């Protein structure tokens, strides 16, 4: 447990000092939202709130990919893997710390993105319920962070990793997003009894559990050579 805390502290310190990831993610989100807003047409938003909510999730997925591609960059570029791997600490602590750090970074970025989402997209006062959206984002971020930490470790020293990671990550993002989009879109009043938030949250919880277990169990194989 002490190893996990120290590794997480290290990741947060590196980001605080380097400020390399979160600022870039925030700028990316803003840029993407603007791009999407313009893409959907000037005054009247084609597809209304439903389209906007769906597209928010597209931006969320691509932003998280940005965070994952830079995971373990420090360890790779400065050859620090040998130090972590020769230490007796359990290697899934490395995975857990990386996942927690990514989860926090995604959270910070989305805390910025949500107000902007309101600003850019919602004109007619109808918006998805904040509670449902926040819960879905939290659970989705957790799943993305845990799966992402495993995949980032896997491609850490593989050629063309910047291209490979999104390709490996995308199939797993599809079921997650399809439920998250459905759930948040259905939470837009008037609620016509679409996918209940509980159903959606249940699925996201299942998703997180599966990739918590697989991430924890498989990380050992991913970092050893």
């Amino acid at each position, binding site marked *: 447990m002490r190893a996990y805390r120290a*590794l997480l502290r290290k990741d947060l310190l*590196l980001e605080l000092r380097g400020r390399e990831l979160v600022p870039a993610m925030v700028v990316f989100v803003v840029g993407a939202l603007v791009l999407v807003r313009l893409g959907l047409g000037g005054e009247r938003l084609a597809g209304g709130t439903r389209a906007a909510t769906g597209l928010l999730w597209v931006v969320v997925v691509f932003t998280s990919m940005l965070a994952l591609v830079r995971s373990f960059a420090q360890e790779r570029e400065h050859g*620090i893997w*040998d130090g972590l791997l020769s*230490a*007796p600490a359990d290697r899934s602590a490395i995975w857990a710390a990386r996942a927690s750090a990514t989860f926090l970074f995604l959270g910070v970025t989305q805390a910025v993105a949500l107000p902007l989402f309101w600003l850019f997209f919602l004109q007619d006062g109808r918006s998805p319920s904040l509670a449902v959206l926040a819960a879905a984002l939290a659970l989705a971020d957790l799943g993305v962070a845990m799966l992402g930490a495993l995949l980032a470790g896997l491609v850490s020293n593989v050629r063309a990793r910047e291209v490979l990671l999104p390709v490996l990550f995308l199939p797993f993002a599809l079921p997650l997003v399809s439920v998250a989009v459905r759930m948040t879109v259905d939470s837009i009043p008037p609620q016509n009894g679409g996918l209940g938030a509980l159903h959606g949250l249940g699925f996201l919880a299942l998703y997180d559990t599966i990739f918590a277990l697989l991430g924890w169990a498989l990380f050992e194989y991913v970092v050893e050579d």
Partner: protein
Amino acid sequence: MSSPERAPAVRCDGLTRRYGERVALDAVSLTVAPGERLLLTGGNGAGKTTLLRVLATVLRPHAGEVAIDGHVLPRDARKVRPAIGYVGHEPLVYPALTARENLELYAALYGVGRERIEQVLELAGLNGRGADPAGELSRGLRQRLGLARAMLHSPSLLLLDEPTTGLDEDGRERLRGVLAAHRGAAVIATHEPDWFAGLEHGRLRLAAGKAA
């Protein structure tokens, strides 16, 4: 020197390790008794670093058998890691973190008390530089930080990969002091074996992955 009942500090029988198609270590066999220091010599790419990384439980052997203190790798890797101090080509520290923060991280990974940090900083002659980011330290000072990191948990087996590179006279004296005071075994890859005169118990030359 070697007491028969205690398992050898390091034992390799026909250790083989490949990188893709290339054979980096080709059936290397060696034994280091407890308390003995073995020098690894040989040109670049002879396999010295690969051998050290296998012993440091970072690389898995592809064939043959490797055992540290009688524990067979890679099965018992977790058991032996607390006893191994590994200094690689790289100092294995985060440049953006200060020397002390790096040591705090490794102290947590090795489950070692924080007071040990000041001791190893002192040992490596870095006592004034604890708060400097590792990236701003000179090549030699970073090499000393790597040595300090490896000594944090008072390992019984030292694995040093060309530890003298980049060290100034004072640094070399401190390294000599550490080695002289070290009771356990050591495997040291070096291009200047003669510098270790008086400290070494044997040498093994590697050429193209084979014990020459």
